[in-house]
């Protein structure tokens, strides 16, 4: 399918995309172009949003976790007001929904999902991975969290409580994994490097040092 009309912005030709999703891609383009035509927003606004989202990465979440581990006052703030803590850690949370920080302990392991769609703490982690948005993850993790975590290579002891957190409404959730042993001498920056994206969703533990 070729593009018969000019609409002022470059993008990849449709043929490159996976067949089944072509309809949704066309729908998105059509709705977006219509909204721009009607003056709801401009093409530049869309580009701005995309660039803003692309700039957000799990490194931001990792910074929050490292601070949480090392600074008791920050930990208190984070448990009380996730957005304020994220701001203090350098994330722009102006347009973000409420953020709740979930602390894992040796007795409690959180894992986050959005069964209804793909709600994810994008403001502090960036774009969610494809598996998080998949029907498989969304349907299986609420029914068999231990099985799903095993598939990620993550074993949870039988006497540890697994708490699946379904982001059904306006709150977004960030997991603080348990601080790995043997990290007492590491700096905040070094600690942040141990915090993987998957550990902040709850399907993995933080990486051990060294």
């Amino acid at each position: 399918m070729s593009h018969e009309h000019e609409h002022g912005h470059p993008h990849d030709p449709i043929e490159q995309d996976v067949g089944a999703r072509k309809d949704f891609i066309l729908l998105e383009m059509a709705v977006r172009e219509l909204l721009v035509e009607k003056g709801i927003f401009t093409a530049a606004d869309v580009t701005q949003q995309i660039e803003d989202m692309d700039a957000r990465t799990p490194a931001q979440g990792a910074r929050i976790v490292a601070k949480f581990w090392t600074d008791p006052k920050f930990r208190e703030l984070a448990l009380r007001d996730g957005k304020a803590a994220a701001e203090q850690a350098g994330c722009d949370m102006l347009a973000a929904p409420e953020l709740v920080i979930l602390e894992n302990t040796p007795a409690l392991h959180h894992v986050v999902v959005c069964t209804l769609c793909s709600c994810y703490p994008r403001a502090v982690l960036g774009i969610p991975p494809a598996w998080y948005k998949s029907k498989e993850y969304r349907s299986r993790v609420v029914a068999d969290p231990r099985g799903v975590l095993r598939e990620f290579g993550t074993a949870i002891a039988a006497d540890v409580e697994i708490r699946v957190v379904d982001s059904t409404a306006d709150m977004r959730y960030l997991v603080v994994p348990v601080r790995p042993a043997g990290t007492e001498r590491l700096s905040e920056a070094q600690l942040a490097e141990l915090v993987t994206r998957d550990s902040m969703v709850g399907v993995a533990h933080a990486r051990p040092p060294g």
Partner: protein
Amino acid sequence: MTRQDIPRGHCRTPFYLRGRPGVIERCLGHFRNPETLAYGKPGLPKVGLYKVRYELPHLWQSYTGGRADTLVADIFEFWLDPA
């Protein structure tokens, strides 16, 4: 108890929780009603949003995980009935 219902239109209470008993952990605040917001209405008056905890072995007959495993979801007030 999460209401057992299949209303028309947009709603944010997952099917797997409808008709299931849970414990309210706390109120998360009041938010605009997503079911009317989705249709371009203002979503007012704001509705209470509650963090509700369910026990996984009670949600699923064939649950094979830990007996103490739980699931928490954020449920709007009008989806909750006293147990």
